[in-house]
């Protein structure tokens, strides 16, 4: 959840401490894991998710990559280091940009970071070969604008890869009313979010001039993530309690239970989409 740790313009020291606590809870990569057997450690599973994104993106040295919702820049720096691509990371958090720039200091300009909004990014048309959106889209209310902007800045033949939490079914308002405390707990722990079905992303991608290559439902394979997050909360209880407060830690643990329930009852899930920009005829 790259951007769930955004804290606006709070002091960097506080931001670092809170981000550190989230790393203890979610793992170094700060996102969900994809489990093969279900028994592997979280860090193996989070690396597997990143690996699926990398494979779907078909990265190769020299490509220009836009990372939308780059958080504190860890994935962007890792992509630049491991795959020889040039990455521009964007986030709406100045503190995130500052932290990411520090992180990228040794990368000789292969990763740079800017304060920009993924739904109105301001780059020229056809600037990038790849657009990478890892668990940030659910925090951007205007999903239409996000997909339009991703498509606009891709070069013809360029590729969008996006993974995120998805909504697996309609949630009637009366159910939201009845379960509002559960939804409010998730909001308190992870921020204001809006989930959409994977098919909706595909529809928007098509409408934006992209040809969808793959829709991958990862719901079952991400399910063990919650078990690992709860274990992390128990293992790092004291440190996280200091950084997030007792209420914050409690909300996180309850969120794990709620999300796991939503995963199991078919309300929420996880998916990955890749799509290629059509050539101009």
């Amino acid at each position: 959840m790259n951007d769930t740790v955004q804290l606006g313009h709070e002091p960097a020291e506080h931001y670092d401490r809170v981000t550190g606590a989230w790393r203890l809870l979610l793992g170094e990569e700060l996102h969900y894991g994809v489990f093969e057997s279900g028994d592997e450690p979280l860090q193996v599973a989070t690396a597997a998710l990143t690996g699926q994104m990398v494979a779907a993106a078909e990265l190769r040295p020299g490509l220009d990559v836009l990372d939308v919702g780059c958080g504190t820049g860890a994935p962007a720096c890792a992509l630049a280091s491991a795959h020889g691509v040039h990455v521009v990371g964007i986030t709406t958090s100045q503190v995130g940009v500052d932290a990411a720039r520090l992180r990228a200091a040794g990368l000789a300009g292969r990763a740079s970071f800017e304060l920009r909004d993924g739904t109105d990014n301001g780059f020229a048309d056809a600037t990038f070969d790849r657009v990478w959106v890892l668990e940030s889209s659910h925090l951007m209310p205007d999903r239409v604008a996000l997909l339009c902007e991703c498509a606009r800045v891709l070069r013809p033949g360029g590729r969008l890869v996006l993974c995120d939490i998805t909504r697996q079914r309609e949630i009637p308002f009366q159910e939201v009313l009845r379960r509002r405390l559960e939804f409010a707990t998730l909001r308190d722990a992870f921020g204001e979010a809006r989930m959409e079905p994977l098919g909706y992303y595909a529809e928007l991608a098509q409408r934006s001039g992209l040809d969808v290559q793959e829709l991958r439902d990862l719901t079952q394979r991400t399910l063990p993530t919650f078990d690992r997050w709860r274990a992390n909360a128990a293992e790092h209880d004291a440190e996280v309690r200091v950084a997030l407060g007792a209420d914050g830690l409690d909300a996180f643990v309850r969120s794990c239970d709620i999300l796991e329930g939503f995963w199991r009852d078919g309300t929420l899930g996880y998916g990955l989409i890749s799509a290629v920009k059509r050539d101009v005829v």
Partner: protein
Amino acid sequence: MAHTSGHVEGTIRKFLRRAKKSEDGVSAQTRLYAGGIGLTSLDTAELAAVLEDELGTDPFSHGFMPETIGEIVDFYDKLGPEAEPASP
């Protein structure tokens, strides 16, 4: 007697402050969702809960989905005295 419109509007404004939504320019014609206050479905559920707590009932639980603040006020205007919550 039914709730006064001032009481209903005051309850809505209290909710907006608590939910950190702007009250600027809010009037009876203000839309609750996109293009207006911008309430999400969760915001709306929480507004329903506040209205029920403060006023004894809420339009959303009755299957009525108001589009504007004025329609919420109208809902209470149309209620009879039986909707008045008991005195503490």
